[in-house]
C-alpha cells in the first residue's frame, strides 16, 4: 500500500494567480499521476509525472498551464497556472508501485477559483 499526503486540501484562489499542489508518498513509487475531477464528474488524467524528466501530458493539457515536477520517487507537485473559474475542480495525486498494478489516491485538493 501507499499513504499519500496532498497539500493543500482545499483553497480559494483569485483568477490569474497560480497554485502549487504537493503530493508526498510514504514510500518510493514508480508511477505518479495527476488527475482532475470536476464536480459530479469522473476522473480525467492530466499527466504522468516522470522522475527526473518532463511529465507526459494527456491530450488537452499543456505544460505551460499545468507544470509538474517530480524530483524524486516520493514527491511531486502540480501547479495550476493563470487560473480561471473553469479550473475549479478537485485535483488528485495517484501513485502505483509498478505498472499494471493497483493505484492509490490522495484525498485530493479542492480548488475554487473566484
Amino acid at each position, binding site marked *: 500500500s501507499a499513504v499519500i499526503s496532498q497539500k493543500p486540501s482545499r483553497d480559494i484562489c483569485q483568477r490569474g494567480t497560480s497554485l502549487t499542489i504537493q503530493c508526498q508518498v510514504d514510500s518510493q513509487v514508480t*508511477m505518479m499521476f495527476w488527475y482532475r475531477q470536476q464536480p459530479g464528474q*469522473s476522473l480525467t488524467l492530466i499527466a504522468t509525472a516522470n522522475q527526473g524528466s518532463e511529465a507526459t501530458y494527456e491530450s488537452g493539457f499543456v505544460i505551460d498551464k499545468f507544470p509538474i515536477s517530480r524530483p524524486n520517487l516520493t514527491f511531486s507537485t502540480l501547479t495550476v497556472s493563470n487560473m480561471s473559474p473553469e479550473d475549479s475542480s478537485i485535483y488528485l495525486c495517484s501513485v502505483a508501485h509498478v505498472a*499494471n498494478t493497483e493505484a492509490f489516491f*490522495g484525498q485530493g485538493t479542492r480548488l475554487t477559483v473566484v
Partner: protein
Amino acid sequence: SQKIEQNSEALNIQEGKTATLTCNYTNYSPAYLQWYRQDPGRGPVFLLLIRENEKEKRKERLKVTFDTTLKQSLFHITASQPADSATYLCALEGGTGNQFYFGTGTSLTVIP
C-alpha cells in the same frame, strides 16, 4: 482515444440484492481493467484488478468479469448492504501499460 462508459449514472437496489454495474469500452482492448470505489470527498479506493487473460475475479462479495469480445466488464456486489453505497469507477490500462483512464462512474445506493 478510448471511450469508457458505465451504465446509468445512478443505480438503486434493495439491501440483500445483487448489484450489477457495467463498464463498456470502444477501442483497443486493455491489458487489464480495474474497479474502484469512491466515497464523497475522498479519493478512489482500489477494489479489484482483472487481466485480459482472466475471465473472472472474486474478492469476498465482489465479482468482476472481463469479456474482451464484448469489450465489457461487469462488476457484481452480492448480498448488498447500505454501506456499499458509493460511486464505482472502472479504469482501463491506457495501452502502454503505464497510465490508466477512468469511466464515467456509477452511483450506487443500497436501500435498507
